[in-house]
């Protein structure tokens, strides 16, 4: 418990100092750090489903998109303020999580993987197709920033601190959750479903609860994204690639660890920037760099799946325990 607290404090310190280092030491835009904040929320919430409960989901990005679009539509079409759009967006994530989770979590193993993957794809196609609602391929624009009274939070710094304060809260809360009695029950369910059922754990109900919980966090992150994304969201941001990225983060961080997933999220969102710098050096254009980036992460994902399906951090914890 103590060690976790230390980990948390170090993590928080890094988060607070990072934007200043980016801005004043290496003179770099804050955008990748901001993105990392959203990804931390997504990866950490997915790690509860994948790592803790052992249920694979390859469509987690769908809930992020549902949250973002619900909040975006509420804000642009109905002119609702952020303190209404964010709860409504989160609620939409809860409802979607329940509606999707209820039928899908009855499936096992690769059927579950396929169903979630397809749900992610179908959601993306829906965002693209329903243009009267979602703006189609062009997406929604003129999304308002978060505004309290007369103060409008439009600068990258303010976005960064809003997003990361919630990201940190998510990390701490999910960490607390995974060591709570409910978390322990989920671990039991993960290692042996039948045994868990025998000692009186409501296996399906618990799976559904954690799935809905994770969807709610993802949708919440989505609502923040709608209000902190410089005014636009478009379907391309919520495609299959997003869900694959999230699962890569969870895998990279060691499937079982909340902090690992957070680290994975930071790595997956910052490494592309390094590759981009190297690419500039060789006069490559942005799309080429993106492709090289995808190839590198694809190879990393395969290597992890071959040599250490449990991830790096998980192994270390096993040894120390």
């Amino acid at each position, binding site marked *: 418990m103590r060690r976790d607290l230390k980990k948390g404090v170090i993590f928080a310190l890094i988060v607070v100092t990072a934007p200043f280092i980016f801005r004043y030491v290496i003179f770099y835009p804050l955008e990748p750090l901001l993105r990392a904040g959203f990804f931390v929320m997504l990866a950490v919430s997915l790690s509860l489903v994948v790592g803790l409960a052992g249920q*694979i989901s*390859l469509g987690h990005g769908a809930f992020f998109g549902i949250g973002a679009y619900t909040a975006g539509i509420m804000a642009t079409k109905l002119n609702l303020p952020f303190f209404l759009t964010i709860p409504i967006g989160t609620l939409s994530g809860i409802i979607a999580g329940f509606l999707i989770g209820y*039928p*899908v979590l*009855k*499936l096992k*193993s*690769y*059927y*579950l*993987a*396929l*169903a979630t*993957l*397809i*749900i992610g*794809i*179908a959601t993306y*196609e*829906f965002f*693209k*197709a329903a*243009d009267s609602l979602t703006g*189609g391929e062009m997406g929604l624009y003129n999304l308002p920033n978060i505004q309290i009274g007369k103060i409008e939070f439009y600068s990258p710094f303010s976005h960064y601190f809003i997003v990361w304060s919630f990201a940190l809260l998510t990390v701490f809360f999910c960490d607390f959750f995974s060591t709570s009695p409910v978390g322990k029950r989920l671990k039991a369910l993960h290692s042996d479903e039948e045994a868990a059922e025998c000692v009186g754990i409501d296996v399906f109900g618990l799976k559904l609860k954690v799935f809905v919980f994770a969807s709610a966090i993802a949708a919440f992150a989505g609502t923040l994204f709608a209000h902190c994304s410089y005014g636009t969201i478009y379907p391309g941001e919520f495609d*299959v*690639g997003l869900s*694959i990225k999230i*699962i890569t983060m969870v*895998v990279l961080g060691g499937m079982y660890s909340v902090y690992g997933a957070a680290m994975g999220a930071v790595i997956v969102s910052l490494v592309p920037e390094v590759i981009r710098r190297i690419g500039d050096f060789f006069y490559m254009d942005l*799309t*080429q760099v*993106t*492709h*090289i980036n*995808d*190839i590198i*992460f*694809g*190879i990393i*994902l*395969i290597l992890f*799946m*071959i040599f250490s*399906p449990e991830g790096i951090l998980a192994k270390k914890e096993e040894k120390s325990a």
Partner: protein
Amino acid sequence: MVLDILIHGLEWASIYATIAIGFSLIFSASRIINLAQGEFVMLGGLIGFSLYSTHLPLFLIPFLSAAIVASVGIVLERVAISPAKRASPTSLIIITIALSVILRSTAALVWGPHTFRIPSFFAHLPAGTQILFFDLDYILIVGSCFVSIIILGLFLKKTRLGRALRACSMDPTGARIVGISPEKMRMLSFSISAGLGGMVGVLIAPVFYANSDLGLNLGIKGFCAAVLGGMGNIPGAIVGGFIIGISEAMGASFASSYKDIIAPVLMLFVLYLKPRGILGGRS
């Protein structure tokens, strides 16, 4: 209009069915769901275009392209799938997703974001030549899909190798006892599926063009078709391909922007109601 829907549906149906068979073949030989299947089609089209620009005779290109893509399939199986012995079925799915990302990005790096067109295989005939109202390109696509499905069926039923593959899909341990190597069968299934995909890629290139982004969409549809008919079930894959092809053609004539949602939604329904597919047994 009904006829139009049927004709277009049939065209898509035969393409989807062929891709779905690729999924089913690999699944039955090794219980792996290879989500990179659509990328084989994409790769086939692009390689076909590169071969075409070397002035090879046109009729050779589908076969050459199929052979090249088949060897790519074998290499991928050796490099990425075969070493993952401890991996769970879910990890294997993640590996094939990573493979599809790698293939797509590599193709985009090599060929760029451009769209390539291989000229029609019947360009030397007068334009608009038809047999019974059907364009020749159309007949070629539907016909060669059917022919390759039939050849594959004969291969699986009549030859020693094909029977070994089927034995492996029924019972890997039993197959190993009588001297069939599941490893080799998995390699074989990857090469056949990849080759089939590569050939389809060239055949559709004169009509639907070749592009590095083509694979994802085709892969999803083919894969929905395979699940619809029951994974690992080859007649099922054909039925699934037809259901998706025809319903998509119907959907496109009513609400064209929603066309791409039809396949996933159909698949979800089937997965929920009958996880083993329409032609599959009880689970």
